[in-house]
C-alpha cells in the first residue's frame, strides 16, 4: 500500500517543509505524518490547503514515501533531493548534505 506525506514550501522563506505528526510544519522529512489510506490523503490535503490559504505555506502536494524506522523517506529521487538538499557541496561553508544515490 502506497504511503504518502504532504510537502510544501514556507511562503515567506521558500524552504521545503513537511506536514508533521503534530499538525504543524517541519523542515525535516522524518517528522512527516505518514498517511496510509486515500481518506487520510484527502484529509491531509485539506489541512495543507487551509495552511496555504492562511499564507503559511505555498503549493502543498502529496508525495509517496516509504517508512524507515518509523520515519518517512521519499520514494522519488526528486523528493529525496528536496528533502536532503543539493547532492553536491555547493557553498563555501556548507557541509555536504545527505547523498541520494
Amino acid at each position: 500500500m502506497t504511503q504518502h506525506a504532504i510537502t510544501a514550501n514556507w511562503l515567506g522563506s521558500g524552504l521545503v517543509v513537511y506536514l508533521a505528526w503534530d499538525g504543524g510544519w517541519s523542515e525535516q522529512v522524518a517528522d512527516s505524518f505518514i498517511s496510509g489510506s486515500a481518506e487520510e490523503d484527502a484529509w491531509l490535503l485539506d489541512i495543507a490547503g487551509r495552511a496555504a490559504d492562511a499564507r503559511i505555506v505555498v503549493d502543498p502536494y502529496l508525495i509517496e514515501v516509504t517508512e524507515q524506522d518509523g520515519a518517512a523517506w521519499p520514494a522519488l529521487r526528486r523528493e529525496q533531493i528536496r528533502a536532503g538538499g543539493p547532492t553536491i557541496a555547493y557553498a563555501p561553508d556548507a557541509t555536504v548534505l545527505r547523498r541520494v544515490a
Partner: protein
Amino acid sequence: MYRYDRYDTQLVTERVSQFRDQVARRLDGSLSEEQFRPLRLLNGLYLQLHAYMLRVAIPYGTLSSAQMRMLAHIARRYDRGYGHFTTRQNIQFNWTRLEEAPDVLADLAKVEMHAIQTSGNTIRNTTADPFAGVAADEIEDPRITCEIIRQWSTLHPEFSFLPRKFKIAVTGALDDRAAVKVHDIGLILRRNEASETGYEVMVGGGQGRTPMIAKTIRDFLPKDHLLSYLEAILRVYNLAGRRDNKYKARIKILVHETGVDRFRDQVEAEWAALRKTGPDLDPAEVARIARFFAPPAYDSVDSAGYRAMLFEDQAFADWVRANVAPHKQDGYAIASISLKPEGAPPGDATADQMDAVADLAVRFSLDEIRVTHEQNLVLPHVRQSDLYELWQGLRKHGLATANIGLIGDIIACPGLDYCGLATARSIPVAQRISRLFSSLDRQHDIGELRLKISGCINACGHHHVGHIGILGVDRKGDEVYQITLGGRADENAAIGKIIGPAFASEDVVEAVETIVRTYIGLRQDGERFVDTYERVGQKPFKEALYDAD
C-alpha cells in the same frame, strides 16, 4: 558601458516599489498564489526545488566592479554565499526569501541592476558576444543594439503576455560568439555594398524540446528601422503564436508551421503598415547610447616583459594559451576567467570570488567585466604587461583554471540538484567528467571541445549545440543520459544528433572517454573534435560505444 539617467533610475526604483507592494499583498492575502505567480515571475523570482530562486539580469553580459560587488553582497547578505552564472549571461541566487526579495531588488537598483523580465512570457535579456567592443573581427559593438532593444523591450505594454518566453541575441563579429542562430530572433550586424551598417534578421531558432536553427527573413535591415521591424515580428507572434500547448508556443513553431516565406510576408506586411518614414529612434538618442560604448582611452603598452614571462613560467603560458584571446587594440588582451575548476559546479562563484574579480577588474580591466553564455567571466581590457599579475591574482582565488573552450570547460545547467523542472542531475556528471579529464596537458592535447549538459528537455545547458551534448532523463526512476554529437553554437550552428541509446549514470562518463579516444584515433592535421566528427560522421563513434559489447 551604459549608465542610467534619471528616467532609467526612476523606472527601476518604481518597479521595486511596485514589487514590494505586490509581495505585501501576497503576504497579507489580497493576492492568491495564482494571481501572484505571473507577477513574481516578471521580476525573475521562481519557486524552485529548495527555495525561491532569483534570476538577476546582467544586460548583454556586461557589468562594472561596483555591480559585481553588489552581487557579492547579495550572495552574502541574502543567500548562502555564492551565485550561479547562467547560459544567458545572467546570475541566479538559489536561496532568496520572498520576504527579502524586495530588499534584494532595492539593493540591485542602487547599482543600476534589476530582475525585470528574467522570467515569464516576455522578452528576456538580450544577449551579445562577450567579446563585444574588443574583438578584432567586429563590425560594430553589438551592445549598442542590445541596449536599444533592452529599453524598448522593458515593460513593453503590448508584449508582456506573449505565448511564451522570447530571447534575442546580437552579434557584431564574423565569429558568432552569441549563438544567435538558436535564438527566437538573432541579429547579425552586417555592412551592405554601400558600406551602411544594418542587420541580417533571423527568426525561429531555439533549443528545448524541438531544437531548430533560425531562418533568415531579411538579409539587410537598415539600423534606423530595427525597433519597428522587431515590433512587427513580435506582433505577428503575439497574435498568431499558439496558446493551446505550452510545448508548441515558441515562435520557432509558428515559423515552422506557417512556413518561413509566408511568415516573412506577414512580418513585412505588418512592418510596412507600422513603420514611420523617419528613423524609429531619434538619432540623438542613438548617439547618446552609442557614446557609452565608445572605446576607452587605451595606453601604449610595452609587452616585452609579458613575452619573457611566457618563456619563463610554463603554467602562465598554459593559462595564456587557453584563456587569453587577441584584442583589437595593440598591446591589449581579452582575459577569460574560468568558473570551471576541477570538480566544482560549473558557473558558480563565491561572494569572495566575486569581490576578487571586482578588484581585479578595477586594477586591470578598466572596471569592466563580462559574463559569457558558457558560464565564465571575461576581463575585456587587460594590458599584456598586466597579464602576469592578473593571473597571479586569479590563482589566489581559484579562478585561473586554464581550460577555456577545452573539455574541462563544461557547461551545465543546475539540474535536479536545484531545478524544479529537471528530470536528472547534471552537476555530478559534470564533476565526474571534470575529474576524469583533470590533466591540463590532456585537455590541451584534445583541443577545443565544448561539452554541454542539460538536466531536462528544456535544454538550459544548451546541450543541443554542444560538440558533445548530454541530456539527462528519467527512465523508470533511474537517471539516464543521452549523448548527442556534432552540435555547434557558432556561425555554423548545428543541432547535435543523438548517438544511440542512453547511458546509465555510472556509464556516461566512460562513454565520454570512449568518444574522446575515438576522436584522437581518427583525427588528422590538427582537426578539432568537431572537424573530425563532421568528416567521419557518427559511425565510428557509434561502433566504439555500442559494438564493443
